């Protein structure tokens, strides 16, 4: 099996506070991997380390065969173009309208003429199911629309790897389903590797090819949806049954 990203013995601490205590995780190329776990286990921090936004304290992150923890800043910048990231609150630039947001990476990194950029922006917006909103400002959009614009911007440069930071948090159930389908469709249509951070169990089991559960700085279980449905792992069982009783301490 081919891997897009490999984490080897990843440690991360902030001051004396240890977030990751040796994470080993391999992300299969061209598949959707969900990273789940209770709040505060450092899922977002892990995501930022995977794309080089944050350096690990110890350990390696290997992307397409290259160790990104030893890269020079300029190499890291080049490498980051392979990634598309959808942030938790979409992180749209609020001084720009929807069109300028989606066109931003194209204007920055390509020399395409305006007509070509127009076409790509329209195509990406269509892909996420939005039409005729190019002139709207981010503050005029609903949460679901913002996330979809964020996704359109993230896939504008056709990345190899898509990272989603809690894409369904804060959305209504219907919009959750729309976003889930979007993640699925984006992956199928573009054939990219997707990594999704979530604590939405339903969507996880529905669309994940592989799941990794994080607790106390380590991966407690890695496997397919089937593995997770049938496991005896007490951490997973407690998390899935949303119970207070079990090995996961409530902070």
């Amino acid at each position, binding site marked *: 099996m081919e891997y897009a990203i490999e984490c080897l013995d990843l440690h991360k601490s902030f001051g004396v506070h240890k977030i990751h205590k040796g994470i080993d995780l391999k992300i299969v190329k061209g598949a959707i991997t969900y990273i789940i776990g209770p709040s505060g286990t450092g899922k977002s921090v892990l995501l930022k380390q995977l794309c080089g936004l944050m350096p690990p304290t110890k350990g390696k992150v290997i992307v397409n065969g290259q160790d990104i923890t030893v890269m020079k800043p300029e190499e890291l*910048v*080049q490498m980051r173009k392979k990634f598309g990231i959808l*942030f938790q609150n979409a*992180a749209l630039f*609020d001084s720009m309208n929807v069109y300028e947001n989606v066109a931003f*990476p194209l204007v*920055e*990194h390509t020399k395409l003429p305006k007509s070509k950029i127009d076409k790509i922006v329209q195509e990406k917006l269509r892909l996420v199911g939005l039409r005729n909103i190019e002139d709207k400002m981010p503050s005029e959009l609903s949460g679901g629309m913002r996330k979809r614009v964020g996704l359109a911007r993230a896939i504008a440069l056709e990345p190899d790897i898509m990272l989603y930071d809690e894409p369904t948090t804060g959305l209504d159930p219907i919009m959750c389903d729309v976003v889930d389908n979007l993640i699925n469709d984006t992956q199928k249509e573009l054939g990219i590797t997707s990594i999704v951070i979530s604590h939405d169990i339903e969507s996880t089991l529905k669309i994940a090819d592989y799941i990794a559960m994080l607790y106390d700085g380590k991966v407690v279980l890695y496997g397919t949806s089937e593995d997770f449905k049938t496991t005896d792992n007490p951490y997973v069982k407690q998390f899935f049954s949303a119970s207070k009783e079990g090995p996961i301490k409530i902070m």
Partner: protein
Amino acid sequence: MERVLSFFGRPLVSFVEVAGQMALLFYSTIKLMFKKPFRTKLLLKQIEFIGANSLSVIILTGSFTGMVFAFQSYIGFHKFGADQLVGTVVALAMARELGPVLSAIMVAARAGSAITAEIGTMKVTEQVDALNAMAVDPVHYLFVPRILAGLIVMPMLNAITVLCGVVGGYLVSIKVLGINKTLYLDYMYTYIEFDDFANGMMKSLVFGGIVTLVGCYKGFMTRGGAEGVGRATTESVVMACVLILIFDYILTAFMF
């Protein structure tokens, strides 16, 4: 003993840390100013925001300071019968000291705070991360246009402040205090040198850098949501004003 050391040591360490971070950021901003792409549109937008939009505040500040200064110095000079020197003193003070310092403090309050609030909000809503994620250097995209605009615009604003101050002082002296017009202007022309003005322009160039650098730095270091943005904005104005006064002394002593 340990407590005493940490009482004095901790602020010292954090001072050195902040100074170092700011110096490094300033250094990389200067380096990145010469790196393509040149974001002319963003630069013009900042020049409009920091410069053009500050005009009304600057004109008011300059004229009223000049007017007040004419009144106050008249009290002293009148006692010696040297009324005609009021113009010289007003122009000297405006050009060397009051113009650069007051215009910089007004810009710190108006534009520096807004720069911090904007970049700070971008930081806490992950927009700065998004720039990084899209392989765009936030220092190049956010710092360079703002600091460059500060360096370009601040001396111009200083020139306007000085001009308004001199005109304000003239109007008060001649129209209100009834000082002899010919003598007033004659003394002013004789004693004011171009160096006095150039001195102030140098200062305001440095202040322009300080205000925008502090604004960007404080925004960039913002943490902790809306409250954090509020705190950073306040700190930015205070820090910029204090630095302006400290650097004013250093520059004055240096160019004396």
